[in-house]
């Protein structure tokens, strides 16, 4: 879908759609599709025929497309005898009423948790879990008596009720219970003593907020004084609360034991459910095959281990839509029709999609391997697709930018065409999907504007969102992404052509359908390749949050969930104030680098999972945090606590075992286990799961550290070798040996020796040898990476401009090539020559424009940018030029810097690369030299050539042809400038004389005109010497040599600038004479 802007940021499509010869030359993708068809046909004897039913209502569970598309029928279940196990995927809650026989409040509304998932046989299940109520804690007021809980409850009930202005839900009892419990705050060490807390249970999750407010503002319990309570765990999501208390983690298996659950009627008779929405809560409300009710105390939640680490055959639907836009305008749902929707459905674990179809508007020639479903009206198309969607009943919906484009477009279009049934996409029959806007802000991703569509019971797994979260790419177009990960190009069809294809014949529409199908299958391939689903599922299991939270929420929720689970075991409670995330924590000790180019092997020793191990080794945690008064109070002896380099005290694990170390230990041992299992596992799919898990565990362990913002850790000085550089968790040592092999041996020894000096589990590991090694600065180095003496593994670059995306590819290529030449070929001279050649090419305009494209993400709305930024300005300009193709918030905006009049601010010089090509706009090569190339180049060459020399040979080298004329050119410039200076001086002093004052600024009636003219004259003066180069040093003092660039550009640019200066000067003179009454206008 080319019209989609969500992933703008690539280069212009160079290929144009070929429409003529697609019959003779079926694309590779079509062959592929055909092949899939054959494979499938083998395993199937039945033909599939499309059943024509009357307009399938959303209540109808079978749209009757194809028998093999629907889920296999549910086997008979006897609730008395059969246990049901399913993997839950989505978990949320709704407000319902009490169900007879279930725990919890019996009157008024009550929260009911809803889980949906799939059984191993592939049947969809929805479980309504009753009786779990939200609660939070406050520490009991000093002197509070256990018996007064009831009094407290009544007082709070009254206060909360009063606060509820309108009680629309008909809440009968807001505060359900107040219990006197013994707990301990997680923050700080309290001598292992529990103190009384009050557990306050309320009827609905949303009542926590007012109750919390009442208590925090200060609350009077009869018989006690006014007291402001600090609340604990009052900011925990209800879902997380529930999952913690029931030991449910994301995507784990839930077992419903026999005789504990009730099956809702209608369940086993799919396709014949009564459509009447009964008031009985027991009737089926979902489109799942099995719907049950169960008490929260009765179901079994299996930890994701052993047998229960398996994955159910989820249905994943990937789709893509095409719209017929108008030329130059981005498709608008209330004007431009949806013409095609391609769908691919795969079962998790299968290698190929088992449903491949495309819904088209108007007839379309058949596509082998895919079902073509053609409709005459768009109304019908949308209606049928919606029915198809419900029929297929996907557990996960994916696609490329479906969240912000496809879904919103479909919903808006359907609403516009009044396709009433369309919006019932979720699993709950009577809940329509509604679009909302949301802003999400996180440290990891910055600020984004997203659209949110609620689809109950299904997880939206937009590939683009995943890529944005997990991968830093230059461009996020589907094309460039698939090229990046799959080395597979897809054709980009311009959206104006789409309309032409649609308006052609059934062959051209077929052409479009193939294109659309390809866009639908690519996300599936990418998800498979990146193992995103598996990794996310494992992450959900490890951190214990629902799958959808991983995509819609930030990092913090994951740690909170883990912390909460662990805290619960030890009767610890979390304060509600934001857990201290040290906003700016000091980095670890960094040993000043000995910059330079090392032509001998450099051994590198690393700490294995440094921060987690330090936290574990020294028992660093909230719970073990001490202050001096605690130490005194608890009479701790110095051997019972440690002091960190930053001056904090923590008690040792003998006194109290910390929570975070425990979490970390668990995570790391789980990782070890996963890695071990991985080694022994042969099944490729299970290997994927295990690999995903160990990765998730590693990430989680590190995020625990990030969460606390703890600042610990210091590298001991290694005196056995010359440390040339030491970073946070690694040291580079020069052992002075000549071969990689010797360095490795010594490194090994050193690591082992030093490890013995540390508190377990902190361990120094020998990992690699760099040879040769170019150390540029802190966190900036490059070298060949050796792990065995036979040959280098790769070239390793840190902090060098090969990866940063706001640099043009030119920089990355140049730096890469230079590093290649320096490190691999050991040819510094060649590297210098290459750099010079590139600079020369740049200045002579011989560089391809694609090399000069810079991309930047448009993250905030315009008015939030304080300073003007090039890409924002450009986005605004493009918006004016053509709203259809202008980048949107969250897009990466590609631009190049173009030559503009002197003194134009840099942010105004950005331009759309395509626009530049089409209009032949000159590039500001100077900008690229000065702002993009010079610094990175100098950085890598300085250690080799020396500071001064690097600059001289690379940037200030004068071009061969101009070198002999250097002096001459300079003098020519200077003579012109002298003339300007003289006039400047004389004019202003004359003005002073006219005015009759030396000490005051000239204020003349002719000020406006003069100001402007003098300004331009001044600009001429200002500009000439400085930015024009030659004279820059000219007036400026002659230290440096001239810029080659400036000399090369000399003839054209300079003359222009002078002619401008002199014209302005003339107009100034004219104003002056007018001022004297001597001039005449006209």
């Amino acid at each position, binding site marked *: 879908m080319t019209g989609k802007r969500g992933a703008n940021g690539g280069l212009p499509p160079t290929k144009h759609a070929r429409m003529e010869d697609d019959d003779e030359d079926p694309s590779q993708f079509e062959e592929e599709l055909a092949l899939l068809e054959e494979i499938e046909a083998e395993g199937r004897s039945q033909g599939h025929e499309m059943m024509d039913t009357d307009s399938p209502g959303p209540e109808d569970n079978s749209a009757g497309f194809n028998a093999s598309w629907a889920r296999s029928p549910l086997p008979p279940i006897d609730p008395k005898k059969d246990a049901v196990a399913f993997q839950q995927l989505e978990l949320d809650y709704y407000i319902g009423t009490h169900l007879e026989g279930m725990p919890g409040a019996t009157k008024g509304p009550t929260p009911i948790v809803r889980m949906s998932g799939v059984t191993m046989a592939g049947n969809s299940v929805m479980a309504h879990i009753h009786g779990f109520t939200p609660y939070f804690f406050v520490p009991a007021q000093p002197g509070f008596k256990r018996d007064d809980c009831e009094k407290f409850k009544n007082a709070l009930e009254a206060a909360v009720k009063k606060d509820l202005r309108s009680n629309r839900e008909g809440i009968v009892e807001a505060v359900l219970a107040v219990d006197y419990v013994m707990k301990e705050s997680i923050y700080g060490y309290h001598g292992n003593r529990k103190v009384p807390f009050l557990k306050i249970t309320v009827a609905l999750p949303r009542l926590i907020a007012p109750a919390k407010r009442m208590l925090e503002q200060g609350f009077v319990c009869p018989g006690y004084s006014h007291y402001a309570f600090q609340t604990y765990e009052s900011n925990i999501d209800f879902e997380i609360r529930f999952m913690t208390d029931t030991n449910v983690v994301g995507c784990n298996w839930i077992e419903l034991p026999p005789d504990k659950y009730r099956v809702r009627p209608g369940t086993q008779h799919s396709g014949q459910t009564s459509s009447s929405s009964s008031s009985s809560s027991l009737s089926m409300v979902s489109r799942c095959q099995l719907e049950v009710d169960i008490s929260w105390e009765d179901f079994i939640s299996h930890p994701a281990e052993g047998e229960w680490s398996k994955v159910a055959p989820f249905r994943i639907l990937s789709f893509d839509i095409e719209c017929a836009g108008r030329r130059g305008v981005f498709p608008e749902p209330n004007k431009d029709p949806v013409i095609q929707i391609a769908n691919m459905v795969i079962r998790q674990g299968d290698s190929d999609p088992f449903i491949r179809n495309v819904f088209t508007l108007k007839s379309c020639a058949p596509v082998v391997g895919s079902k073509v479903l053609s409709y005459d009206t768009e109304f019908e198309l949308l209606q049928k697709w919606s029915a198809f969607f419900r029929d297929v009943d996907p557990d996960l919906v994916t696609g490329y930018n479906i969240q912000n484009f496809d879904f919103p477009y479909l919903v808006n279009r359907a609403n516009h065409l009044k396709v009433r049934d369309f919006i019932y996409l979720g699993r709950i029959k009577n809940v329509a999907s509604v679009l909302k806007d949301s802003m999400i802000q996180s440290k990891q991703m910055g600020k984004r504007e997203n659209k949110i569509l609620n689809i109950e019971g299904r997880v939206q797994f937009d590939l683009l969102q995943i890529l944005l979260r997990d991968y830093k790419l230059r461009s996020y177009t589907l094309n460039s992404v698939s090229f990046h990960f799959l080395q597979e190009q897809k054709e980009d069809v311009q959206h104006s052509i789409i309309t032409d294809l649609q308006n052609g014949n059934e062959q051209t529409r077929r052409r479009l359908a193939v294109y659309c199908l390809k866009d639908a299958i690519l996300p599936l391939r990418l998800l498979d390749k990146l193992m995103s689903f598996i990794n996310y599922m494992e992450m959900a299991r490890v951190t214990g949050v629902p799958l959808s939270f991983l995509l819609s929420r930030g990092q913090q929720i994951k740690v909170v969930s883990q912390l909460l689970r662990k805290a619960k075991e030890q009767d610890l409670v979390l304060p509600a104030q934001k857990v201290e995330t040290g906003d700016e924590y000091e980095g670890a000790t960094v040993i000043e680098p000995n910059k330079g180019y090392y032509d001998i092997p450099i051994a590198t020793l690393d700490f294995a999972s440094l921060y987690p191990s330090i936290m574990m080794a020294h028992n660093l945690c909230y719970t073990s945090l001490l202050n001096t008064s605690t130490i005194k109070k608890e009479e701790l002896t110095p051997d019972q606590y440690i002091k960190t380099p930053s001056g904090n005290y923590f008690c040792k694990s003998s006194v109290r075992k910390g929570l975070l170390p425990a979490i970390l230990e668990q995570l790391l041992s789980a990782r070890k286990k996963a890695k071990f299992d991985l080694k022994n596992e042969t099944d490729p799919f299970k290997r994927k799961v295990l690999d995903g898990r160990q990765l998730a565990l590693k990430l989680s362990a590190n995020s625990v550290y990030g969460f606390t913002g703890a600042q610990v850790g210091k590298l001991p000085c290694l005196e056995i070798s010359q440390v040339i550089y030491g970073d946070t968790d690694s040291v580079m040592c020069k052992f002075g040996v000549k071969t990689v092999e010797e360095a490795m041996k010594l490194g090994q020894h050193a690591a082992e020796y030093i490890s013995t000096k540390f508190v377990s589990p902190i361990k120094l590991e020998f990992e690699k040898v760099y040879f040769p090694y170019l150390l540029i600065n802190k966190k900036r180095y490059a070298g060949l990476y050796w792990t065995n003496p036979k040959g280098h593994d790769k070239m390793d670059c840190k902090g060098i401009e090969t990866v940063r995306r706001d640099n043009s590819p030119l920089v990355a290529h140049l730096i890469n090539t230079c590093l290649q030449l320096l490190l691999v070929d050991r040819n510094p001279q060649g590297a210098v020559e290459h750099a010079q050649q590139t600079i020369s090419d740049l200045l002579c305009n011989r560089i391809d424009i694609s090399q000069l494209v810079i991309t930047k993400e448009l993250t905030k709305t315009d008015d939030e940018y304080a300073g003007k930024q090039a890409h924002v300005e450009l986005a605004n300009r493009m918006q004016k030029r053509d709203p259809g193709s202008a980048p949107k918030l969250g897009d990466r905006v590609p631009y190049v810097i173009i030559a503009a009049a002197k003194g134009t601010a840099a942010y105004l010089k950005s331009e759309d690369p395509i626009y530049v090509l089409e209009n032949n706009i000159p590039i500001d090569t100077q900008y690229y030299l000065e702002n993009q190339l010079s610094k990175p180049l100098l950085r890598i060459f300085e250690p080799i050539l020396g500071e001064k020399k690097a600059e001289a040979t690379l940037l200030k080298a004068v071009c061969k042809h101009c070198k002999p004329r*250097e*002096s*001459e050119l*300079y*003098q*020519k410039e*200077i*003579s*012109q*400038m*002298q*003339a*300007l*200076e*003289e*006039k*400047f*001086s*004389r*004019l*202003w*002093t*004359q003005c*002073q*004389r006219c005015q*009759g*004052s*030396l*000490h*005051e*600024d*000239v204020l003349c009636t002719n000020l406006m005109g003069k100001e402007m003219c003098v*300004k331009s*004259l*001044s*600009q001429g*003066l*200002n500009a000439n*010497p*400085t930015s024009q180069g030659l004279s820059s*040093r*000219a*007036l*400026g*003092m*002659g*230290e440096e*040599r*001239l810029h080659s660039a400036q000399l090369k550009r000399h*003839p054209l640019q300079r*003359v222009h600038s*002078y*002619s401008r200066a*002199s014209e302005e*000067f003339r107009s100034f*003179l004219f104003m002056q*004479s007018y001022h*004297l009454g*001597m*001039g005449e206008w006209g």
Partner: protein
Amino acid sequence: MIYSATPLVENVQSFMTTDTPANVTSNLNRVASQVQYKNDRFIVKDRSFNRQFAHLYAERLMTMRKRLTKAATEKWGSTPIRKLHELVNDERCIVIGTVFKHMELRPNILKEVSEEHNLMPQPVRSRYTDTKDKLIIEDELQRIFVVGDLKCETSVTGVVVAVLGKEPEDDKGKFHVEDYCYQQLPPQVPRPLLEQDKFILFVSGFELGGREERPFQMQLLADLICGQLGDMDQQEATAAICHVVVAGNSLSESTQDRDTLTKAKYLSKKTSAGSVEAVKTLDEFLAQLVTSVDVTILPGEFDPTNFSLPQQPFHQCMLPVSSRYNTLHRQTNPCDLTVEGLRIMGTAGQPVEDIYRFSEMEDRLAMLENTLVWGHTAPTAPDTLACYPFVKEDPFILSECPHIYFAGCQQEYKSKIFKGASGQEVLLLTVPRFSQSGTAVLVNLKSLEAQPISFYSHFPIVDESVSPEVDK
């Protein structure tokens, strides 16, 4: 220093014998010297022409007022110091302000502009003084005409002065001056005592590229400095020259080509600057010197650098050969340096020339002396002398008293020891144009004595000597 115009026979003979030609000359060493430059204030860092000159005047007045207040109080006791807007008629008081000289004949750029409108062309003249010139004194807010003791002939615009007098009831708008005073000369660092004679050679106005160019004398000068001339004694003497100052106008006025601005683009595109060849010659000349001695070169009015004061150093690219040596010091004009602890300050002569044009003084050395007395190197800047629009400073104010104060590119050589009120001793020096006089100036840093040294290119038939001659 001895100049052997008549070399001793035995010394000359040593050159003639082929036996020992080299060993005699090889053991002479150039005396070492310590050089420091204090030109930071003259280096224009942010070139901004978006401002006017008022700031510079204001800054000058502010700085000088403090010094003048002190001088005036010492001279006239408790006489009240008034701002011009506080003047009370007939009250005898002191006024401190900037002098402005109202001159009818001063060239007016607006009139030049009017040429384009077919009005009268202005006569070309070398001096712009007239009997009708009037003096005005101005402070931050007001200005008033001055009559009386402060002489118009010897005053120029831009000098800050304290005047004693009154504005009489019957002659309003005029301040009758009975006495005046300038600032007190700033203190001087005691002159270091040198153990041996060390010489510094001043030369200016080579004016290469013009008709007056004197290549042969220049070569003689270079040879002399480099020890290629004269007998043993002579060479021993020249070895004591520890520094050479080239004080401006190394290029001739005729290399100036200011027409480019008014010419059409296509005409100026190919014409190269007239100074190119001359600069090359200069580079070659300097290259000879710098191999042997430290050379400070400052640009002058006609040199290829910026026009307004302070002029920035020659650009390295123009002197590719000589600037390879670290003995070449490309410096600003004005230039402020210390050699062996002696503070040396000077210009390439533009301020003195400008004062000449706008006053009726004749003696350039006296004008130079005046600028020292006024405490300001270039008072007529920015009024008639082009100057960078400084904002927060006036770098031309003399804040320390130099030991040697020179002006390059002058008509003739003159020197004088100026004695300040608090014991300062300054050698005032006008360095003549070499193209006119063939003369350079040697100053002995030990004794502060100056002596000119001239080179003649005509070979008197009567005199067979090729050695340089001393004019005294």
